[in-house]
């Protein structure tokens, strides 16, 4: 058994950033990745647009993540690939992490853990598509794996359900490879993906987008032969009589991502029902002492730049985490209440330890607002406000607030809300 200060689970952009920052703080770090190569999902995201904030360049997924890998290797951080964590046990002496790989059953001990486990895709059944079970129904990520990693063509005539970014990216990708994308259908009245992807992935290739429509049924016994499309009402329920049949051989779903937190849950980490990720503080520590979260396991990010940023914060905090039950926890943490005007807010808590200064917040608005103002109030007293233009639920906002000089205690009531309009 080997001892570490920080053990990072997941070798995608979040985990790599966490490992690098923890190592830079002088911690003994081990990163465990279940796939054969580091890089996470970015290995298959071969389109460009990554890293504009961090590097000021439009990189492709592999280019972006390989920059982190390079730094990771330069720091000679220990790692295990094709290694799968089977269980984690918390004890007085730290966390015992059990894993398997081709060498056998492994056991590690660590003071702190960073869970950088990413997210998974919602499936056809989870959006209640009915009918038969033919081949040719894929989540966008699975289709992307086939095309970009295996060089296999999973589609010829294809319908895409969901206008999430991966769906839009796959519409373009499959078109470039010679498939016919018949249309992208979105159950909501507004598109889910970034506007620029609507332009450069759909408009550029004359792929139609149908809002307030969904796929209700699939047909075919061997391979998919067609799907049933229906219009939906304002509560997103199919409207009887609007059904029509579209002949196609492939249905690709881009209907949402779910943070992966099964391991966190096994450690008793409470999740936020809004983010579906762990409730965490500004250092990305969850409610379980010594367990940190980052990236898409915390909440689904739009941009990988933010994933890396949260990884860095979590890694740094995990490195400085000492199993001393006094001091920090005496001051405790205070909840930040995000009201219904926010779809969610990360972090949910502020750690009142000595260094509460600049805090990075990530949030999404619940509604589309051409003008909106986000305010933070402590015990009814407004301490911060910022004006926004074009707030949209699909687009995450990042915000830095300096809490220096704010006398926050465990009992303070911190309220975050967005009001319509620009008046402060």
């Amino acid at each position: 058994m080997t001892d570490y200060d920080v053990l990072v689970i997941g070798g995608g952009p979040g985990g790599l950033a966490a490992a690098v920052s923890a190592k830079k703080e002088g911690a003994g770090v081990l990163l465990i990745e279940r796939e054969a190569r580091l890089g996470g999902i970015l290995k298959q995201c071969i389109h460009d647009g990554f890293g504009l904030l961090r590097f000021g360049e439009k990189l492709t997924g592999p280019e972006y993540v390989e920059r982190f890998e390079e730094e990771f290797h330069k720091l000679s951080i220990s790692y295990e690939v094709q290694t799968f964590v089977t269980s984690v046990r918390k004890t007085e002496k730290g966390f015992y992490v059990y894993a398997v790989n081709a060498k056998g059953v492994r056991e590690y001990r660590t003071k702190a853990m960073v869970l950088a486990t990413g997210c998974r895709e919602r499936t056809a059944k989870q959006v209640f598509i009915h009918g038969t079970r033919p081949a040719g129904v894929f989540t966008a990520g699975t289709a992307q794996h086939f095309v970009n990693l295996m060089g296999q063509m999973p589609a010829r005539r294809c319908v895409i359900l969901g206008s999430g970014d991966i769906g839009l990216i796959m519409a373009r990708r499959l078109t470039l490879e010679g498939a016919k994308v018949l249309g992208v259908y979105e159950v909501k009245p507004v598109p889910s993906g970034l506007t620029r992807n609507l332009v450069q992935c759909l408009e550029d290739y004359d792929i139609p987008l149908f809002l307030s429509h969904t796929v209700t049924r699939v047909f075919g016994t061997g391979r998919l032969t067609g799907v049933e499309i229906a219009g939906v009402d304002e509560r997103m329920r199919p409207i009887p009589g609007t059904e029509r049949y579209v002949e196609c051989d492939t249905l690709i779903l881009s209907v949402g991502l779910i943070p992966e937190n099964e391991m966190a849950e096994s450690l008793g980490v409470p999740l936020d029902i809004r983010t579906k990720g762990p409730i965490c503080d500004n250092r990305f520590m969850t409610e379980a002492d010594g367990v940190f979260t980052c990236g898409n396991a915390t909440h689904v990010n739009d941009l990988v730049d933010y994933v890396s940023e949260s990884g860095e914060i979590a890694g740094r905090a995990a490195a400085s985490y000492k199993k001393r039950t006094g001091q920090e926890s005496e001051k405790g943490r205070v909840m930040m209440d995000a009201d219904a005007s926010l779809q969610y807010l990360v972090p949910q808590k502020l750690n009142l330890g000595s260094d509460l200064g600049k805090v990075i917040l990530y949030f999404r608005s619940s509604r589309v607002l051409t003008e909106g103002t986000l305010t933070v109030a402590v015990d009814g007293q407004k301490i911060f406000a910022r004006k926004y233009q074009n707030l949209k639920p699909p687009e995450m906002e990042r915000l830095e607030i300096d809490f220096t000089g704010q006398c926050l205690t465990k009992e303070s009531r911190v309220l975050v809300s967005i009001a319509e309009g620009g008046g402060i």
Partner: protein
Amino acid sequence: MREMTCIVCPNSCTLKVEEQREEIVVTGNKCKRGREFAAAELKHPMRTVCSTVRTVFPEAPVVPVRVSAEIPKNRIFDVMREINQTVLTVRAAGGDVVIRDVLGLGVDVIATSSMLQSFAELKGEK
């Protein structure tokens, strides 16, 4: 006046573009790149192409590539045809040129991953 979405960054600004004689007036952009985008989009829209090329290595049948700089939008499928005819026979690293000066457009097609090299390392470890 034309309305267009700037695709330079995730902000996706809605640009209002007006051609006044020789000059192009752009509003709605948060940064100067929006103006440049609008000007290009009116005269000669440019795009990046990202794809994969086949390789001779069974552990990585395809490797990701992109054009080193934007190409005219109407040449995308021409470039794709070139990309599709290329087979990588060396273990290229990210940034290595796969097709030099593709179709005489003055840009290269470059590999965007060093995966072939890391696979070679993985094999070496065994």
